[in-house]
């Protein structure tokens, strides 16, 4: 129950109007550690269009710049350096899995699933070099990604909802822990990768994501990755996400199937036409 106004009197209408207008017009100022502004149902407000910056999509671990696979792309095809976003620097692979990761990296252009416009999976969708939009409702949080029009629904209201199969974007159940949206992501297909450096997982993957507002235009993203078939222990990644402040910002279409058809099916098409 809401407690009555301390003075017990009607709030001064002018003051109320001022507060209302101030609430509408003030740019939210949020220092790290301060609570985020709220959605109408009272949860931390993560609504907006966000994007990662950096080269985690090329390699989660720290890496130097290197030439890309396509010489005719020149500098634009080269892979930028990165400090890495893995806590402790290295992914704790089991020996056999490290071997496999090296094989993956050696042949990544052929093997990396996003090269074929397949859905990137979680957490990779978060740090693809494309924006994504969070839309919160009390029961669901929708994340729509620009890359490949992938999307996923985070169920906030069904902690016991078990997915009957596997999915490229996994199965997401969320809850609030203070200022943080915590999402348990299960039911991954084994086919997605974490980056273009061959970092991979099995179908035993479980990801716990944590989204925390730490500024008016920033989210901190953390993910704990657990897969006892591939790694020796759970490991973590952490990176900031930035609000896209471009005027009239909106997700645009990147339905990449049409861009990969020649690569995937070209050997089966009829060449004498057009």
């Amino acid at each position, binding site marked *: 129950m809401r407690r009555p106004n301390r003075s017990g009197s009607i709030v001064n209408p002018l003051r109320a109007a001022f507060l209302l207008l101030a609430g509408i017009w003030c740019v939210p100022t949020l220092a790290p550690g301060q609570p985020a502004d709220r959605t109408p149902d009272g949860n931390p407000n993560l609504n907006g269009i966000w994007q990662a910056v950096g080269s985690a999509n090329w390699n989660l671990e720290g890496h130097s710049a290197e030439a890309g696979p396509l010489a005719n792309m020149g500098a634009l095809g080269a892979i930028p350096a990165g400090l890495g976003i893995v806590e402790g620097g290295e992914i704790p692979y089991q020996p056999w899995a490290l071997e496999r990761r090296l094989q993956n990296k050696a042949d990544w252009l052929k093997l990396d699933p996003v090269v074929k416009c397949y859905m990137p999976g979680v957490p990779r969708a978060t740090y693809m070099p494309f924006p994504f939009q969070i839309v*919160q409702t009390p029961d669901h949080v929708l994340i729509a990604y620009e890359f490949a029009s992938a999307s*996923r629904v985070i169920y906030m209201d069904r902690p016991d909802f078990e997915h009957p199969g596997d999915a490229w974007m996994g199965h997401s159940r969320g809850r609030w822990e203070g200022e943080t949206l915590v999402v348990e992501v299960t039911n991954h297909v084994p086919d997605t990768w974490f980056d273009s450096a061959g970092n991979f997982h099995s179908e035993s993957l479980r990801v716990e994501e944590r989204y925390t507002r730490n500024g008016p235009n920033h989210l901190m993203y953390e993910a704990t990755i657990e897969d006892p078939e591939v790694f020796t222990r759970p490991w973590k990644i952490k990176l900031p996400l930035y609000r896209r402040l471009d005027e009239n910002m909106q997700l645009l279409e990147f339905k990449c199937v049409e861009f990969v058809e020649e690569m995937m099916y070209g050997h089966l*098409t009829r060449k004498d036409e057009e």
Partner: protein
Amino acid sequence: MRRSLIAPLAAMLTAVPLTLAAADGGGDGDQSWTPPRTAWGVPDLRGVWDFRTITPLERPAKLGDKQVFEGDEAAEFRVAELGRRDKDRRASDGISAEQDVRNAYNQFWWDYGDELTEDRRTSLIVRPESGRIPALTPKGRERYSAMRAARARPPRTPVDRGVAERCILGFNAGPPYSPSAYNNNVHIFQSPGYAVLLIEMVNDARIVPLDRRGHLPAHIRQWRGDARGRWDGDTLVVESRNFTDKTSFRGSGANMALTERFTRVGPDRVLYEYTVSDPESFKAPWTAVIPMKKTAEPMFEYACHEGNYSMFTMLEGAREGERAGGHETGGDGQ
């Protein structure tokens, strides 16, 4: 004592039709029903909405100008329609072997629904009164014929097979949404300033800004167009422009102006109405109305491109046919 029961009973009896009217959601039901609101005060359309129906988009020619089924006609039409669509009929049931092959999947895989719309209309199209898509313009016909010809031959490239089989947009995803073979569900999300229409087929999320911003510049084109929304009373109106010439909804072209209207007409009903206006392609605009039912069932990921083995096999089959000296035949022309 007995008399004291009459009033409550009468009240119950009068209440029953009202309740049913609200539940069936036909627009002319309980006029006193008002839609629930979100915490920020707009009509609440959130939830998963099922738009399955066997009511045809266009009125079958044999029904002439009959707009609404009368008497037993609806039940008779339903039985005939379900029989016609039954994919478990074999050659031994009197269909041709060729048709048997074309049916492809067993009935188990199909989910058109098994009911007509509750308003017993003979077509989803309500305007024009013919219940049929207006004639194509010469330009529209040319484009439509080229598309049909490409579909009717063994595919030379994936483009010949159309957007649904290429897994670019779902076969019922339009826009506009159109009841089809299965997964006829759209999950509507709302947050302040936005509505999102997530359709199950190929996971396409149409994010609709409600802040009255203008459309994208005319040269930026999108497969699903560019959606902008506003409230007209309690109705969410979504206007889409900026389509491509690579998709076609029943003959539409890149300059289609699509208006969709979503109205919550009952606790478990949203009335979905769309108008296609495209003078380059159709001789007149046309409008369809599809009642959507709320479902508690969740939607699941439809990973189409990721599992599109049939594109490989269709192309392989076409090339194999050429190597064997075959001519271009086959294709289902759909």
